């Protein structure tokens, strides 16, 4: 049942992505899979909580979800789109493959196409030994990290503190008291359980438990696995689409080789979840602005992923604010009408999720402890120089300890920029706005620490590394987007 419930979300995300992306978007199958699953999980969570708040019984919510999948399938059939439009599958599933294969071209034909496809990949790898080496190491790292994730998960099957204190605890409330949980959440002590935290992960785990009819520890483990590894896959494929395959593998390897990234994943915290949606928003915005004319449907999906980031963690709300602010930097290069049209589509995508968040925050959850503690003291904290000094000290300390690498890897990023230079010709708008977004997020986090009502050192020591990790995949993407590369023509050949 757990597999069934996750597969439902996967198909929801998959069909949605097939509908949104077009042939000339130059996406590939791995990109599609790594985006579909987390997106599907996010959409399922929104549907589940929204309909649950309308007091719909669970079996009806499941029917709505299945109905939506059928609706999307019909819509795709009508629009003549197929899964075969994504490169990487072209060899296996030709155009318009949704029809049944003719008896003459049965499994033999598919096997033949599979063989051809592997031959193509094999040829490409053999031509480029460096790419082959990176591919081998990438797969080795992927398998090793899966093993590490598994061993850590069975050792701490309920996850670490935040998992059993916030995310899984509230999931228990929702699954065991599906109609009473809003009332119970309202009475919870905010300082102990943070019932104001958004419900993407919580709601989805509760949904899985309702399918399972028990509170299996495997539901949060599988969800965390999906987000952790889809972030890696999505980052690697996105970078490979915009640059080349070797860089894509390097980007993925950076995350795979970062020891603390796996710890973040198997601890069942929501930081990888929100990190995925930050990355997806930036990547989708880059896709939408890749050509001269914008792609509204991709901007809407970027809006959805930004909304889902706010539905994952409160930091997502800061992300949305920074996202809109960062877009205004494009006024130097764009007509304001054009920019407003883009922002309109972004807002359109996130609006339903923002309504749900607003309803949850206003009607159900008690006020956030950081927000509710603000008042006259805020100004005193803002003018306290020692607080700035402390936060700065922690920011710089992260530079050396971040990720728990054996040696500090930051010089590699710096070296890459010095060696290759920065490319502002391709994807200029996306690169600039994404970089400003990244800086604004860091600045936002900085000021949250300045005004925090919690003891400053305690707050910093328990959260700063996780906040930086949320931004890490996005940073890697922006970095590879910005570093100069060979001619675009060459890269397109590599992608194909």
């Amino acid at each position, binding site marked *: 049942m757990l597999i069934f419930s996750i597969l439902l979300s996967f198909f929801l995300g998959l069909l949605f992505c097939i509908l949104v992306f077009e042939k000339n978007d130059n996406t590939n199958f791995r990109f599609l899979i790594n985006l579909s699953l987390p997106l599907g999980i996010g959409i399922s969570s929104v549907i589940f909580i929204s309909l649950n708040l309308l007091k719909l019984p669970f079996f009806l919510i499941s029917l709505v979800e299945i109905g939506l999948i059928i609706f999307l399938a019909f819509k795709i059939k009508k629009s003549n789109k197929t899964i075969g439009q994504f490169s990487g599958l072209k060899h296996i599933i030709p155009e318009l493959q949704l029809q049944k294969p003719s008896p003459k071209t049965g499994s033999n034909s598919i096997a033949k196409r599979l063989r051809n496809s592997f031959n193509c990949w094999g040829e490409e790898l053999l031509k480029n030994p460096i790419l082959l080496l990176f591919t081998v190491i990438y797969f080795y*790292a992927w398998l090793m990290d899966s093993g590490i994730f598994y061993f850590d998960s069975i050792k701490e099957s309920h996850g670490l503190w935040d998992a059993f*204190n916030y995310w899984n605890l509230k999931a228990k409330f929702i699954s065991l*008291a599906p109609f009473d949980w809003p009332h*119970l959440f309202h009475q919870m002590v905010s300082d102990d359980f943070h019932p104001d935290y958004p419900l993407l992960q919580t709601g989805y785990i509760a949904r899985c438990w309702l399918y399972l009819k028990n509170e299996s520890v495997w539901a949060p483990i599988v969800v965390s696995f999906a987000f952790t590894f889809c972030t890696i896959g999505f980052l690697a494929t996105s970078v490979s689409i915009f640059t080349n395959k070797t860089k894509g593998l*390097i980007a993925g390897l950076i995350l795979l080789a970062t*020891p603390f990234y796996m710890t973040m994943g198997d601890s069942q915290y929501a930081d990888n979840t929100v990190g995925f949606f930050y990355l997806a928003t930036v990547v989708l915005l880059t896709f939408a602005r890749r050509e001269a004319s914008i792609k509204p449907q991709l901007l809407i999906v970027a809006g959805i992923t930004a909304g889902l980031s706010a539905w994952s963690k409160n930091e997502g709300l800061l992300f949305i604010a920074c996202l809109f602010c960062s877009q205004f930097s494009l006024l130097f290069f764009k007509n304001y009408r054009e920019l407003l049209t883009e922002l309109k589509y972004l807002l359109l995508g996130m609006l339903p999720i923002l309504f749900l968040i607003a309803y949850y925050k206003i009607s159900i959850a008690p006020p956030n402890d950081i927000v509710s503690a603000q008042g006259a003291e805020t100004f005193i904290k803002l003018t306290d120089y020692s607080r700035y000094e402390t936060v700065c000290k922690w920011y710089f300390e992260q530079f050396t300890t971040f990720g728990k*690498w*054996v040696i500090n890897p930051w010089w590699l990023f710096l070296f890459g920029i010095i060696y290759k230079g920065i490319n502002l010709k391709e994807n200029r708008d996306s690169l600039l706005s994404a970089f400003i977004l990244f800086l604004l997020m860091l600045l936002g986090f900085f000021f949250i620490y300045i005004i925090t009502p919690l003891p400053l050192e305690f707050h910093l020591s328990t959260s700063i590394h996780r906040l930086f990790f949320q931004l890490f995949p996005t940073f890697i993407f922006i970095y590879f987007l910005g570093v100069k590369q060979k001619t675009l023509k060459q890269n397109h050949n590599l992608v194909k």
Partner: protein
Amino acid sequence: MKEPIIKIANNILLIALLCFFVWQLYASFIKYEDKFENPVIVTKQDYGNDFITQYGNRFVEIKKLFPKPTNLTYIGENNEDFASGALHYILTQYYLSPNLILRNQIVRDTIIYNLYNSKQITPSTNFHLKNGWHIVKDFNNGLIVLAK
């Protein structure tokens, strides 16, 4: 002439980068080496034996006492340090949800004592037993339910 040199330099740098990744991955691997060698034994040994899961075994019986969501007042050990006090409280809430476990000033009619170390309450000195509450059930594992 310049292009092949750049190409060679690029390849050398990529190989160096690859070595760096391999070194980092190896450093991660050696911490788990024994686990990778005996995955089945490790699974049997670790799965379900962590502190949180074991802690949950204490709540199997007490859960049956509350078929519908109830509000309970929580009392922990006396002189407990902040961290372990918070952990015991949170795990009580975790295992007894959707009952609401509260440890604020307002004392409800139903009280749950979670005495993980001392296991027993002393009737002669206990405030609640002296003020109208009685023991509903003592689960003999430190969990005691009192009611008015």
